[in-house]
């Protein structure tokens, strides 16, 4: 049975926001590709989680979406970061560093 990766939900918005901020408007597939290539394929985005996360972030007002036409003349939905998203990113990033720092500290000294 498939299990739900609730743990990813903490990190996923952070990654999405960061990518969108760096690369500008992207569609969902583009976001996946970027995360995978940038993490040297270490991080595999669970597509099942990505879209609910994107929609939730859109709900929260961190990103906004519009329909566009891709280079292959396909209808795609492009996402970009809003001002609120930027603020959220800063906060999330700070917290992420704090947590990972703490974890690293424990790993090193335990």
């Amino acid at each position, binding site marked *: 049975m*498939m299990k739900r990766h609730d743990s990813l939900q903490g990190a996923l918005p952070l990654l999405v926001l960061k990518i969108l901020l760096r690369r500008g408007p992207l*569609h969902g*597939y583009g976001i*996946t590709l970027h995360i995978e290539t940038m993490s040297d394929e270490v991080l595999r985005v*669970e597509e099942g989680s990505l*879209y*609910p996360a994107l*929609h939730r972030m*859109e*709900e929260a007002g961190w990103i906004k979406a519009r329909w566009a036409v891709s280079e292959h003349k396909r209808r795609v939905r492009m996402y970009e970061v809003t001002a609120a998203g930027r603020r959220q990113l800063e906060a999330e990033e700070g917290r992420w560093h704090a947590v990972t720092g703490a974890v690293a500290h424990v790993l090193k000294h335990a």
Partner: protein
Amino acid sequence: MSLLSRLVNVLRASKVERDLDDELRFHIEARIDALLAKGVTRQAAEAQVARQFGSRLRLREASRDVKLVAWLESLLKDVRFGLRVLRKDLVLTAAAVASLALAIGACIAAFSLIDALMLRPLPVSAPDRLVYLAYPTYEPGSPEGDWFNYPLFQRMREAGQPHVDLFGVSYPSLRAAIFPDGGGQDERVRAQFVSGNMFELLGITPALGRLLAPSDDVMPGAHAVAVLSHAFWMRRFGGNPRVIGRTFTFYEHQFQIVGVAHAGFTGTEPGRSTDLWVPTMMHSAEALGPEGADWNWFRVFGRLRPGVRAEQAQAVLQATFSTFRQERARTFRPDDPRDRTERYLETPLRVHSAANGPSELRRTFERPLWILAIVVSLVLLIASSNVANLLIARAAAREREMSLRLSIGAGRGRLIQQVLVESALLASVACVLGLLIAAIVGPAIVNMLAPSTDPAYLDLRLDWRVLAFAGGIGLMTTVLFGLPSALRASSVAPMGALKGTGGRVTARLTLRPLLALQVGFSLVVLFVASLLLLSFLRLTRVDPGFSQDRVLLLSLDTSAIGEDQEKARAALQLLDRVQQMPAVDGAALSQWALFEGSAWTNSIRIPGREPEAFEPFFLSISPGYLETMRMRLLEGRTFTPRDIEPDQPTAVIVNQAFARRFFDTTHVVGRSFGRPVSGEAAKSSVVRDGLLPQEIVGVIADAKYGNLRDPAPPTAYVPLRGLGTLHVRAASEDPLALAPILQREIPRALPALRVTNVTLQSTLIANSILSERLLALLSGFFAIVGLLLAAIGLYGVLSYAVVQRTREIGIRVALGARPIIVIRTVLAHILSVMALGIIAGLGGGLFLSRFVEAVLYEVQPLDALSLALPVCGLLVVAVLAAVPPARRAARVDPVVALRYE
């Protein structure tokens, strides 16, 4: 996203879904293209992508939850799904809805009755500023009196003027009226004599013509005008506007109809609907003059003036009330018992709120209706827990579905919502049906509140109060029976349920307390109902001391005969004529019929004894009365025609209770006592010191007077000099067949007489225990319903337990357990639950019985019978409900059972 666009999304669900699919399809295709480019075969690529995406269903569910107003959208879906599920289990659903609808309907009916009779304010302007006056009577049966006489009212009205505007309203009794278009026939109308300022003070407006004004209530006998109620106008005159100016005969006057009150106003007495109002000045001159001080015939209402509190008004009115009584006490006989006079003088006047209108019917039925309300709420609880049981059992059957939904990503909240939606569907269907049931049951109960000859009326309209109550009940039941199964459904462990094990222990744990509750509640209902039933049965078996069978009662209009002398002569002629008719087994007259509601009490003086405050009952009877009524003469003689001749005023017959009360022996023939008389009667030559001598000529066995509950009161029977109610004992089994013959023959024999009303003695006695009958019938009915529901619940739980434990039973049987052991295993835990329920139910029943005790007759809650009856009834039903599942358990085939799953 704005709320608006979310709502638009909900309504355009298909468009959103298409967009979502587009987005996902693009993603999937792009992914597959990428894999193909890497040299993976299309088949392998598709498989990998599908794996990665997991279930597309879940994806969509999770995505859309955030895209839309989640609950609204999922609600629609759940409703559709719920309906589908409910349709699938049609029998189960129908049973659940029917039992629930019955219970909810009963609750709504009880509420609307209680609301109409007790809670709802009168439909008048500012009802909270309305008061009425009352005083304690110091009598056990009627603790408070609220009837006043005209002279006292006049003085209080004047004295209270600066604080409160008083107005009088007589009891809305049925009286005879003759309308010109009625063919000269008497019609019974509910009429009230009211002060001219009543309509103005209540803020009632006319629907037609004008209402009574203070100027219509000035001179005795001078204002023959009447106002109709809207309902009567519609019923009797079809709403004809030309009714204004028409006349009718009433109370020996030609009244003119001057107006119609606005719709919805039926008087100030909840429980009765007034047909017409006439000014108090049109009551008999006697009642309005100074001699009317003895005649209490109306209630006194008042509207407090702005800024005045009820206590201020009370202080002013109390002074007038006390002064009036002091003046009256001066006319009392010097030998009147002192304590009684003192109490008379010190009686407080009470000012009560009349916001919801004082009501005789409320006085009688207040407690019975509350008892009924408790009973039906208990039945509702039983029905609710039954539905909860059924839902839980079904939820268990749906474990696989639930865990599938959970594992594909449905939130637990969503599952709870799903189950609650299902129960809300059940509850709302039951509520709608319940409103329909209440619309039938409510009026049926109103009909049981009063005899058909004097019907009660309650405005049981479907207003916002009733609807709010129905809605509240629906909500409560939804939570009550939905929540346990919802919580249970959502606590399913996906892995276990899919594998076919686990999750079941919780089911049993939830079912057991519910079953105990059910058993407990139904025992309470059964207990209370059996107390009320036993009490009613005992009341109907009470021997009244006379025979009520085949006794016809005929009211006579004697107004055409003037003189008392003539009346006495007419009485003898009438009895002579009727007694000779075929099919008549005896005829007699008395001033009124027993159990009719009228009573005459009078103080007496026993030679050589101190005057007592206690007053015995009196009844004037004609010769032949004791024989006709089959009262038993124990000693002495009965009355003869000689006794009713003038100047023979002394003979009296007493009952045993009288003899014991005043002479401490039953051998009292030849003893005598004095009866204080005043006015015309005091002028007789035999009266000494205002005392009419009464010589006891006979003693009869005790006979009840107006109520079955109390022991027969000490009663003295005196000769009737005149006419009254004609009592005819029919020789045949059908006394009513005699009525038309008598109605035809009596005016033929005595043209001055007219029969105005015919009834049966047995009807009057039955009418005297209407509230007991109502309680016994309804609580008995609901006890059966409750028992049935509990039986269904028990059956369901047991069947469920057997199915759950089939495997275990199979193993036991395979290992050689005998059927009895198997049955015991299945029943064991149910029995402890039952025992718990019975103990709790008895506790609750005994607690409740303190509230019921006041209406019981010769039944003690702690009687062996009162306790044994409900417990045995419950046990019998429980055994019957347990037999089929137990048999199924005993028949479990180990081979089949072990192969199962």
